[in-house]
């Protein structure tokens, strides 16, 4: 197989936004996941699913440039993330926005300052231009007028929304969400799912969502990968609705059918 990178040609428009090739990773000498190879298409909502502790966040840390893999390559629009010199890698990393599990807002700054910081670092905008952008991003996530609040003064669900707004500060190509619905009530979780879909539809941003919430998975996912904690590798990739019915792997069907053996198994 030849990829755009191999032939040296410019990136084909239908080349994947993100491609993992034989990624193996872990902490210290503890293996977390091995032999991960999958593509994330541009404009898709891509779900990384699997039980707690199977390594979903770890994979995200690798793709977003925080954790070097033991082996394999991460290609962001054909460019290999971990084979770049640090300065170039940091440029590539900036094309990703990340919403962390806890929101990870900088607690000593107001919401507006949280969103402005990336802008301050990478643009030469005037302060009032930055404030305007921050206000606009807050409005996008339904929090117009909250700019002067501190992270400790808003609820968990709001904090996650601000996390999304901050992740979008530099208009990234890909947005990552680490368990967006964790710790939220069903209604807030639902709203966050809707927000992800709306943002994708209006901005065309590729969305990578880590979650194990089935409702959420079936609502938002175009494509997915299933990571397994026991075999420490991926068991399946594809549209989760199809996997639920037709995956040849019982474990995947069981997971997607809330622990009941799926149709395939009972047939």
């Amino acid at each position: 197989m030849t990829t755009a990178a191999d032939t040296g040609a410019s990136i084909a428009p239908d080349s994947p936004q993100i491609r993992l090739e034989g990624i193996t990773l872990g902490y210290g000498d503890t293996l977390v996941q091995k032999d991960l190879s999958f593509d994330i298409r541009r404009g898709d909502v891509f779900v990384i699913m699997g039980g707690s502790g199977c390594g979903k966040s770890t994979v995200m840390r690798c793709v977003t440039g925080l954790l070097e893999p033991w082996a394999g390559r991460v290609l962001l629009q054909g460019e290999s993330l971990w084979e770049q010199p640090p300065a170039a890698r940091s440029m590539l990393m900036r094309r990703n926005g990340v919403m962390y599990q806890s929101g990870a807002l900088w607690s000593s700054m107001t919401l507006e300052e949280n969103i402005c910081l990336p802008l301050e670092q990478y643009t030469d905008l005037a302060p009032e231009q930055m404030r305007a952008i921050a206000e606009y991003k807050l409005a996008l996530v339904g929090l117009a007028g909250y700019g002067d609040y501190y992270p400790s003064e808003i609820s968990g669900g709001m904090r996650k929304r601000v996390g999304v707004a901050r992740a979008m500060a530099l208009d990234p190509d890909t947005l990552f969400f680490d368990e967006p619905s964790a710790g939220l009530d069903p209604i807030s979780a639902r709203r966050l799912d809707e927000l992800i879909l709306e943002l994708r539809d209006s901005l065309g941003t590729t969305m990578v969502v880590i979650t194990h919430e089935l409702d959420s998975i079936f609502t938002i996912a175009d494509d997915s990968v299933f990571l397994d904690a026991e075999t420490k590798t991926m068991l399946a990739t594809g549209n989760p609705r199809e996997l639920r019915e037709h995956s040849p792997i019982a474990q995947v069907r069981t997971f997607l059918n809330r622990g009941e053996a799926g149709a395939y198994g009972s047939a």
Partner: protein
Amino acid sequence: MTVTATPPTLALARHEPRRATVSIGGTWRVTQRLPRLARARELLDQSPDTTQLDFDTTALTDWDSGLVTFIAGLEQVCRERGIRCDPQGLPAGLRKLLGLARSVPQTGRGGHAMQAAPSFIRRLGSDSLDLIKSTGEIMEFFGEGTLAFRNFVLGRARFRRSDLWLIMQESGADALPIVGLVSFLVGIILGYIGDQQLKDFGAQIYVADLVGLATVIQMGALVTAIVLSGRTGAAFAAQIGTMQVNEEIDALRTLGISPMEFLVLPRMLALIAMTPLLAIYADLLGILGGAFVGTVVGSLTLAAYLTETQIAIGWNHIIQGLIAATVYGAIVAASGCLRGMQCGRSAAAVGQATTSAVVTSIVFIVIAAAVLTILFDATGLS
């Protein structure tokens, strides 16, 4: 329960070659004296060629987790010896409980909890490895710190100036009362000891020399540094550690913002700037403490005491004190930030980070004090 407790029984019988039956009878409850697993091992040892083990529990009257754990242990022993266990003879409920215990997902590090306490030699080895690793981490921290500092000198470091002012205020101005109080008291202690010793020679005026020199050369800086390590160094470790736990540092790094520049640099700069200033203030209050003893206990006049102090202290002493204070300030900030950056991802880890920040800074302050004293002596500054 109406059944009176009958003692638990355990026996092993063989009917066929290589096939044995464990008979379990009586009441197997944790409140009872239950047979140990070692007993089962002994029984199995008596017929070493067994390859298949059945259970007979017809005589079992009552059981609880005491029996479940025993059977689980027995199954483990059998696995080790390559003996097949047939659970058919066990009560259905017990089989279910065993199944539950087995189906707990095994994570990669599941073996952690079961590891026996390491032997002394092993601990010594792993501690040494840890020491090497932590030395490596400290070196890396200083390497990155130096790079950040270079960027600062070149005007390229990315941090918020407002953070720097805030940290300076919190670590400097806000520390005045406690630094002042401790220094004053240390001045009193020094003065009192000096007075006790010197009055026998009628040389009480030299209390001023003693207190003045000790304070300006070393005690002022040392007291400031120790107060700061408990107050500010610990706070740095807690702040950065909490940011580590909340993934705030990851969020900085994904944006390509170096936490070294953004978090560590302003803290280092703030303490390097504030510690000498605080030390001068500590010196003054220490001398006042000495003067208090000199005038009240030693019946000197305040003017005489202060004049004597002024004569005793030279610029070289003041410079020594300021150099020491700057070094201590850097140590306190670096230890706090280092432990914060090394912090694990749990709330408990933040607590450990603060404790170890204070310990690290005090150890290194004492080492630095010794090294500086020798250096000052060698360079003729003292």
